[in-house]
């Protein structure tokens, strides 16, 4: 079983559309969406949710006003500015802001009157679903919640156990943007990180940051340049950069309105084989097919 992570650093380079294409092309796989705070893959794959599980990712400090004397020890103890002395008097003036609370529990240990308890916080949900292309594990982080890294770890663990049970060959993951905690949780231990970039100054800049992260975690990488023909000069620059760094450019995908149109209809950019694709396949779809051949032959 081999794990492929599709990732981009910068958002909006088209990584979900690529994963949608791979969902059609790859056989015997499970899909996962690790972009847990703005998951989109389900819009293309139309999952039927089979199981919904709650995710308790963190704890939050909860004040018992009955016990609180308003001594202020907790206000001093909290390094995240989550506890404030409001305008009231005595025990009514202490307020804990759940959004700023990091769940460190220092206030609860420090309170001389035992007035602060740590309560499990429902931070989101994760789902096991069926799609026309195979099983999908995805998640939904609650509004303004933290610990997306932990949720990513949960999603990946589930995907791996399903893949082992069913003897699947691939885990294909749509990764989160950025280089922070959910990305770090997504990249550890994958067999290949496919980095999707675009020929813009921002795309190039962010690709360099994500490559640095991959090096940090000793992850094998390949690069794919999406919409390369929007600026062929920049695309060449990216290719040169990759050549110098010894990174394979596994594919170059042209800008094709068909991708946007397919997306607007809620369909992957690559048509399933039984749709007579080979007669009127778009140029982007063709390029994604070639990309998958390269990626899958590396993974074999």
């Amino acid at each position, binding site marked *: 079983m081999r794990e492929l992570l599709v990732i*981009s*650093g*910068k*958002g*909006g*380079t088209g990584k*979900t559309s690529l994963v949608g294409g791979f969902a059609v092309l790859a056989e015997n796989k499970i899909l996962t969406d690790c972009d*847990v*705070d*703005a998951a*989109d893959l389900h*819009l293309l794959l139309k999952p039927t949710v089979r199981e919904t599980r709650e995710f308790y990712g963190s*704890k939050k400090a909860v004040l018992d006003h009955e016990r609180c004397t308003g001594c202020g020890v907790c206000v001093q*103890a909290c*390094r*995240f500015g989550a506890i404030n002395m409001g305008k009231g008097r005595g025990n009514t003036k202490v307020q804990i802001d759940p*959004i*700023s609370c*990091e769940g*460190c*529990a*220092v206030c609860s*240990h*420090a309170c001389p009157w035992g007035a602060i308890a*740590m309560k499990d916080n429902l931070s989101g949900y994760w789902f096991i679903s069926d799609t026309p292309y195979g099983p999908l594990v995805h998640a939904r*982080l609650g*509004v*303004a*919640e*933290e*610990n*997306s*890294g932990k949720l990513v770890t949960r999603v990946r663990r589930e995907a791996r156990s399903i893949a082992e049970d069913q003897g699947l060959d691939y885990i294909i993951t749509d990764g*989160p*943007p*950025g*280089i*922070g*905690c*959910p*990305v770090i949780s997504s990249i550890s231990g994958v067999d290949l990180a496919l980095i999707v970039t*675009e*020929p*813009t*100054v*921002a795309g190039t*800049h*962010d690709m360099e*940051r994500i490559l640095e*992260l991959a090096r*940090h*975690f000793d992850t094998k990488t390949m690069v794919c340049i999406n919409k390369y023909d*929007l*600026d062929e000069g*920049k695309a060449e620059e990216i290719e040169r950069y990759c050549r110098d760094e010894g990174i394979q450019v596994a594919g170059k995908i042209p800008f094709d*309105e068909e991708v*946007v149109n397919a*997306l*607007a209809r*809620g369909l992957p950019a690559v048509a399933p084989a039984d749709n007579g694709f080979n007669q009127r396949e778009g140029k982007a779809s063709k390029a994604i097919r070639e990309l998958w051949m390269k990626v899958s032959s590396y993974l074999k």
Partner: protein
Amino acid sequence: MVIAVASGKGGTGKTTIAVNLALTLERDMPVQLLDCDVEEPNAHLFLHPLLDVSEKVALPVPVIDQSKCNGCGRCSEICAFNAIIAIGTHVMVFPELCHGCGGCSRFCPVSAISEEPREIGVVESGRAGQIEFVQGRVNVGNPLAPPVVRAVKSKIDARQVKVVIIDAPPGTSCPVVASLKDSDFCVLVTEPTPFGLNDLVLAIDVVKELDIPFGVVINRSGLGNKDLLTYCRREKVPVLLEIPFDRRYAACYARGGRLVEEFPELKEAFWGLWRRIRALATTGQTEFRGPS
């Protein structure tokens, strides 16, 4: 006034909006631009600021004096993040997991724990033309972005500057919340695709939770479908500006160009955006019929 520019989905043009709004206003009022997308800061690619001040952002992480430690294990019990583990008198610290809460050192009964700063990122500041520019960068491999975001925001100069524009990271989780918190208005940038609409709805939940008045900018309008506009109309979400898809705009963005300097029609459009933001932010009203 602090205006945050955010988007649930990445790559919708958040940085473009933040940068071009700042460029529109800079000659007429003092403007500060804060790039809070500390994982992938991009605004500098369009503004080329002269960054003459650089300050490290550090978190206090524990250091153990093994000679004092009695192996009681209190520190590992206290730590909510599994960042410190005591096996007998051998205490191990995992700095990348540590949030710097100070719990372990506070409660160690024999004061065997002190703290030392661990660098997790940097805040750089300077000027780009008339714009006061600040950006944060989290060190590669460090998972904790919010402290770097907070360090960038500590540079907000509300007394000297009339308008503070924050370029927020994409998504809806903690770095986004840290960026948006205490803003007077939030501009949500999206695009008319199913992804754009799905992620806009999530972002709206966040700004509502934070109780910040907001409006939407639709970028690349004309591509995709009509569902986004239908949604905005139905939910009475103010549409502040629509920027049509145009290959010339895309090419300008690709090479790091400035839209409002190359396309006069967009300069006008950004003034309109500013007027609508000001009107909505000062009335604190969250419902509005959108530009006619």
